[in-house]
């Protein structure tokens, strides 16, 4: 069942022990975001801060989508499922979009501020990290923009920094859909681009905005497909576009081609560093603010793993990558974008139809914008590796990847300038080198002479011994229910 709004989702997180409500006063100036940051680093429940200094009636909620359990809850699944099962359901649902519906009345318009009364500092925007260039009103939200000459409505996620009472600054990359709309259409025609920032929509609606769905394709329908219910949209108050009716806060405005650019940043980024320096950015002028009573501002305090950005890549980019591999006939068994590696690495397990399948996977994933911009390191494993178990992957890497033959570099690849390992010149050019680590046994190796049997409990003992030990494991005082583990996995582990 889909959540109607972020409030329903937060209540579900709380029921599953994935969120805590904090009613003591908390300062929006660093304190709130520091709490979110620590909770993310510890893997603790998402803090829902209901008593914010200077902003009575406002709440801040952070880390709402920062682990696989929360991803499962968002889509209505058992949070204890294996990540692969959760993510495969996302992948299947993403293929069946559902059209949105329009409503007349919307909770997000319970309060409406326009004209001279607009003051962004009346909204509770946290100061996220010491040293950031400003307060970020949008950190886990998305910006809706209509195409210039078609009925395409695009959603995209970008930071929005508060400059003054009516102006926000944000990064519009030319290769992103919103950048293509602005630089390719609105700017040449000297027309202002309408936009609306949507803060605090139910989680799936927010999450889909972070991944490119494809030119001309609406993330709104994708969100409906993930929810199994249409997204309810309402018309904005001052701009010709539609936004989710049950969101907490909507900012409406224009990016005016007549406006010059503003310096924005620096800000702590998804990479785990303050990689976004002070740079010229686009000015988002605000024409209206609408919000629910007692609004909740949703906060992503980005930094080292694991936070919302890491998880969104783990869910959405994985789906894009799977699609790319499927349509090119790669016999992929499973795929993981480890949240600990901030979307810069992917691990793929494959059955091998021919030699160097790892390099085919690499060229496919490195070569497309959706999957390749962030991806730097690709690990390709045999089908006997659980790609979600980093310890298994590290073991395979250390034992199966030949230090010379197993590594292939791809030079002069396009890259996001936020990659911390790039030199200053490489950041300016957006240029990097990518690498594939082939952690598979060579196809021409003899299984009798060259490929060794792995020395783990499941591989080195007969099934009757495994079964006997698993049956009695808890009886010996161990906490794990190994009988259940074996029952669930024995078909997969069969030698037949």
């Amino acid at each position: 069942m889909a959540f109607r709004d972020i409030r329903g989702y937060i209540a579900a997180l709380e029921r599953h022990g994935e969120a805590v409500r904090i009613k003591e006063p908390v300062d929006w100036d660093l304190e709130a975001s520091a709490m979110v940051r620590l909770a993310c680093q510890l893997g603790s429940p998402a803090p829902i801060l209901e008593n914010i200094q200077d902003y009575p009636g406002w709440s801040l909620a952070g880390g709402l989508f920062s682990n696989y359990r929360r991803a499962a809850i968002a889509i209505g699944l058992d949070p204890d499922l294996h990540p692969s099962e959760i993510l495969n359901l996302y992948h299947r649902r993403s293929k069946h979009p559902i059209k949105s519906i329009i409503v007349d009345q919307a909770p997000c318009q319970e309060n409406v501020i326009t004209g001279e009364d607009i003051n962004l500092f009346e909204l509770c925007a946290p100061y996220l990290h010491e040293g950031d260039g400003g307060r970020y009103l949008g950190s886990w939200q998305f910006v809706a923009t209509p195409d210039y000459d078609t009925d395409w409505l695009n959603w995209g996620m970008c930071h929005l920094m508060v400059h003054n009472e009516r102006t926000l600054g944000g990064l519009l990359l030319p290769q992103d859909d919103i950048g293509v709309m602005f630089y390719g259409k609105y700017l040449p025609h000297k027309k202002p681009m309408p936009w609306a920032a949507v803060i605090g929509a139910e989680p799936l609606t927010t999450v889909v905005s972070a991944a490119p769905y494809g030119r001309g394709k609406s993330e709104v329908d994708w969100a409906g497909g993930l929810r199994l219910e249409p997204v309810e949209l309402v018309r904005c108050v001052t701009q010709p576009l539609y936004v989710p009716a049950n969101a907490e806060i909507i900012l409406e405005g224009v990016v005016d081609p007549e406006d010059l650019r503003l310096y924005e940043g620096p800000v702590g980024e998804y990479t785990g560093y303050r990689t976004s320096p002070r740079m010229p950015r686009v000015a988002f002028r605000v024409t209206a603010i609408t919000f629910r009573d007692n609004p909740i501002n949703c906060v992503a305090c980005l930094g080292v793993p694991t936070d919302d950005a890491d998880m969104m890549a783990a869910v959405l980019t994985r789906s894009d990558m799977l699609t790319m591999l499927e349509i090119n006939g790669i016999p992929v068994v499973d795929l993981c974008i480890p949240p600990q590696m901030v979307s810069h690495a992917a691990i793929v397990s494959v059955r091998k139809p021919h030699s160097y399948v790892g390099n085919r996977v690499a060229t496919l994933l490195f070569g497309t914008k959706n999957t390749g911009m962030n991806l730097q390191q690709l690990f390709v494993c045999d089908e006997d590796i659980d790609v979600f178990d980093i310890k298994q992957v590290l073991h395979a890497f250390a034992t199966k990847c030949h230090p010379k033959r197993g590594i292939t570099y791809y030079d002069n690849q396009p890259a996001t300038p936020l990659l911390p390992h790039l030199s200053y010149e490489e950041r300016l050019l957006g240029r990097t080198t990518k690498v594939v680590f082939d952690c598979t046994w060579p196809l021409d190796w003899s299984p009798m002479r060259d490929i060794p049997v792995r020395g783990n409990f499941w591989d080195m003992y007969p099934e009757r011994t495994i079964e006997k030990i698993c049956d009695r494991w808890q009886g010996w005082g161990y906490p794990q229910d190994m009988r259940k583990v074996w029952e669930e996995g024995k078909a997969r582990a069969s030698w037949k």
Partner: protein
Amino acid sequence: MHERPNRRLAVHKGFGWGEDAYEIKQREGREVYDTIILDDSLDKLLQEQEKEVTFSIRLLAPENRRMKYCFRMVKARISKDAKRYPDILLIRSQRGLLFPGNWSIEVLEMYKDLQWVAHTTGVLT
């Protein structure tokens, strides 16, 4: 991951987080602002001293606390000497590190408009 404090990078030692701006204001009776420069050293900024410059400052201790971190474009004079001008100016690098030592500032005019990139010259934004 990162459940306990790590060692600090040696190259970042010496860059603190600064005092609470309201505490400075209360103690010294002076306004407190900061600015973010487009460089990683103060060398170029030293040349901007004691002449009229137009750039953005952030309000760090405004009367209405909700307005903290609001940008204002100002025409001002600045000095590395912390006592030369009436108010305090803190300097941050383009990646957010706070330079040690307060500067001083005399705000000659404060505008509600913003400092646009095209109007920026030199190291000040």
